[in-house]
């Protein structure tokens, strides 16, 4: 594997630790789940519809920042042929164990999502669920996603909403007021965190268009009435998430 950027190395350290503390066990629960669900409020795909109309049977899928690989597993069970890419060996190790336990095998590749060692136009769907979508620089990983997709292929990614970032200070959870400036927003380093990337709506649209994507949907995820604040990801409360979007799913189609 090519040498990592300082940001990717820092994020790998964070996710090695997080995997030991949380995602190793959480991945086990997610793999056991039949239904596809999205984000910290676990909203079922049948309600969100981020993948609606996308043929998964036989589709070549690449997951950028797959972590413990549960999204790829969900898609594999629906007939897709996923490849999971992640920069953190510890998470891929958990993914491999879970593959064995579930008898579900697909390639897992240790690589930076900004430089994937796979040929152009090899995939029908690029998916990223809190993977490259927040941990890689969009000005690097979006062109990479465009390169990897075949014409007509889809890009689906889940990230934090702009508004929750604007309301986030060094202390969790998010406040009910704007504290970060939007203009120029891009790279964020939180205390005890890694390096995250968050850009505004206008910047996402311009970037996607620049790389040949047509924006198909933006699903802004609302915490349901009975949601509770997430056990591990405490950056936002359920009360906040009922009034304002903490997370959003973008969907785009490569022309």
């Amino acid at each position, binding site marked *: 594997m090519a040498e990592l950027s300082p940001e990717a190395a820092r994020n790998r350290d964070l996710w090695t630790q997080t995997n030991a503390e949380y995602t190793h066990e959480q991945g086990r629960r997610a793999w056991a789940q039949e239904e596809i669900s999205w984000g910290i409020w676990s909203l079922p795909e049948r309600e969100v519809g981020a993948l609606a109309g996308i043929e998964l049977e036989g589709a070549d899928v690449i997951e950028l920042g797959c972590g413990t690989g549960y999204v790829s597993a969900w898609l594999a069970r629906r007939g897709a042929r996923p490849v999971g890419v992640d920069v953190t060996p510890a998470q891929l190790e958990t993914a491999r164990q879970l593959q064995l336990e579930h008898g579900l095998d697909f390639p897992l590749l240790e690589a930076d999502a900004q430089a994937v060692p796979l040929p152009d136009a090899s995939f029908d769907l690029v998916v990223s669920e809190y993977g490259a979508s927040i941990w890689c620089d969009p000005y690097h990983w979006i062109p990479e996603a465009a390169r990897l997709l075949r014409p007509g292929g889809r890009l689906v990614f889940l990230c934090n909403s702009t508004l929750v970032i604007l309301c986030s200070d060094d202390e969790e959870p998010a406040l009910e007021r*704007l504290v970060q400036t*939007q203009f120029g927003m891009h790279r964020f380093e939180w205390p005890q965190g890694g390096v995250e990337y968050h850009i505004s709506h*206008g910047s996402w649209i311009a970037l996607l268009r620049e790389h040949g994507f047509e924006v198909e*949907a933006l699903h802004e995820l609302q915490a349901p009435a009975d949601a509770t604040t997430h056990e591990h990801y405490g950056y936002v409360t359920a009360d906040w998430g009922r*009034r*304002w*979007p903490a997370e*959003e799913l973008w969907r785009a189609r490569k022309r």
Partner: protein
Amino acid sequence: MSGLSDHARRNREFWDRRSDEYHERNAAFIAGGMAWGVWQIPEAELNVLGDVSGLDVLELGCGAAEWSRALLAAGARPVGLDNSAKRLEWARRANEEAGVGFPLLHASAEDVPLADGSFDLVMCDWGAMTFADPYLTVPEVARLLRPGGFAAWTGGTPWAWVTYDEGRDAHGTELLSDYFGLHRWDDAEGSVDFMLPYGEWIRLFRRSGLAVEDLIEVRPPEGARSTYRTAEDAAWARRWPLEQIWKVRKEAR
């Protein structure tokens, strides 16, 4: 005209009542046209429209038609639409003074009495896309555009809506209202304004056969002046977008 919606009627009354006062306060500031929004950022800087010569253009909520006159001068064939007869009186007067003429239409942008596929460009600067229901105007825009034609308009932003302090008529940093369900605001002064969440705008465009081309989050220059907003709002808008420009294109098929 039949079938005017309740909010269109209220906004007609509001703009008829406020027309002269509005003109007095803002007309000189926006007289040149070809500049967007409450800080009048020149089109030459934002380059939203490009070359308009030869285009059939509909302006939705033209007021005194400053934009339409400027588009005419740039070689376009404008039609100015407004829901207020009093605003259109100012447009007629200004056209006479300038010695120019183009159609001025008294109608709601929610129900435009013009044929399908009549325009290459539908535009609006804080006009009907703020004061009419987007669930009605966006499909109208799509209907009125020719395949391959485009629409562009300024309006407020969801952030400006959720931080709006009506008591002070200013934007602060506190989130005062909910984002989910954002749609309609009945202003204390009698107008009815509309705004949608980002995802809801995109859903509506796609459903109407419009491709999302751009979303310009407007940032005024330092010390920007306006007859519409205070210096406090200008300072706010240096940090967060207080106005935005959507640009969408009618799909060719």
